[in-house]
């Protein structure tokens, strides 16, 4: 049994690498898109605020699996054909982006109005106020839910196996298909996911302490 699993390890490692790659893409892309849209939601003119609000509420109201199938099987109907890998990344990124928008809105809304006013009063421009006054303070409140979201993204990336992409989950299923050793392999898979997410949570707690400059 162990021999068979050891034999499959390089294959599982490839799957794990793909899981990390999908997760990384989704986390980075959703962070960039979510922060931009989130700033639009908080500070933008009414049409932008409405558009972001509708986007976020819609996406968050759809199960992520439906979103993945919609992008992969649905979009070709309107002429958009994506490889399964990019369809999965797009769907997961849309989902995560909507969450990042909400984390950002919440974090920024928690900063008292007087902070913006004090920053305005010394002559900082809008961008400078965000960069030097608002974001550094909002970061501390943004971090915990966002790290939670990152661990969700790592776990949620297992759904891409449903599009036939050989991520860690799919690799495990394939090895089980050959070896019929379901229990040890699923335990191994669970341990790997757990190890990644535990490392993230640990890093998050360290970061939170480092940025704990405001006493609540």
């Amino acid at each position, binding site marked *: 049994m162990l021999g068979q699993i050891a034999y499959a390890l390089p294959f599982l490692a490839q799957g794990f690498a793909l899981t990390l790659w999908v997760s990384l893409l989704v986390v980075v892309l959703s962070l960039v898109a979510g922060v931009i849209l989130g700033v639009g939601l908080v500070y933008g003119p009414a049409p932008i605020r409405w558009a972001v609000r509708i986007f976020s509420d819609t996406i968050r109201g759809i199960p992520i699996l439906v979103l993945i199938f919609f992008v992969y099987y649905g979009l070709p109907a309107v002429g958009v054909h994506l490889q399964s890998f990019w369809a999965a990344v797009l769907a997961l990124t849309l989902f995560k982006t909507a969450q990042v928008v909400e984390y950002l809105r919440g974090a920024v809304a928690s900063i*008292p109005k007087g902070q913006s006013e004090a920053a305005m009063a010394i002559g900082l421009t809008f961008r400078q106020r965000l960069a030097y006054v608002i974001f550094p303070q909002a970061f501390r409140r943004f971090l915990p839910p966002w790290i939670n979201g990152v661990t969700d993204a790592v776990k949620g990336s297992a759904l891409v196996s449903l599009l036939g992409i050989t991520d860690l989950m799919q690799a495990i299923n394939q090895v089980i298909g050959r070896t019929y050793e379901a229990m040890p392999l699923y335990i191994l898979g669970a341990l790997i996911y757990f190890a990644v997410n535990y490392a993230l949570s640990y890093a998050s707690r360290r970061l939170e302490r480092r940025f704990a400059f405001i006493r609540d």
Partner: protein
Amino acid sequence: MATSSNNSTALLDIAEVSKSFGSVSVLRSVSLTVAKGEVVTVIGPSGSGKTTLLRCVNFLESYDSGSIRIDGKEVGYRDAGTRQRRSERDLAAMRAETGMVFQGFNLFPHLTAAGNIMLGLTKVRGKSSAEARSIAEHWLGRVGLGHKADSLPAELSGGQQQRVGIARAVAMEPKILLLDEITSALDPELVGEVLAVVRSLAEDGMTMVMVTHEMAFARDASSRIVFMADGGVSAVGPPREVLAAETTNERLRTFLARFRASHF
């Protein structure tokens, strides 16, 4: 007309400024000029528009009509007639010419005392951080906090925080300093240290407009006192005139009587 826009020595010229929040009229054609080096104190019952007026001067609030000029330059709008708002960059540059100290201090909690003062100096005035640091240290020394340069706001008392707030504003070398009830959030025993700083700035010739409830301080430190009621200027003049008990101004007499009853 009470405006004196022909007064060439006016540093701040507020002319017929009106503003409403929805159907509530908070400023009714307010006019006021402040000369260089003057200390003008605005008093009045709450809801009279004092703070709103102050916040219009650095355009933290917009106003519906009228004009506010600093050194002859229209503050919030490219032109008082067209009422076209200045660009973000322009507004920031205009605001850098006025300093403001807030009732709630509003120090940046993630920056040290020196860091609070240096932010505007480096990002707005373009000074090197070494130069900004030495300016920050100079002003912290002036407000008696030379030893607190590297303390975070949370490590300072209210009075100390407010003195950093003042240092942050004056370090930018503003043409005019706006003080919005800066001692109202302080414990009584901390008020004196903050007012002492304001007094020393006045002696240095800093032009100031302040909203305060500290009547004794207003009487001693002001060149002129403005009494506002219902969004308008109800009385203006030297402290002894405005605060005189035998004033014929009904609103002012009621305000002063109520004030004396509750504070003495």
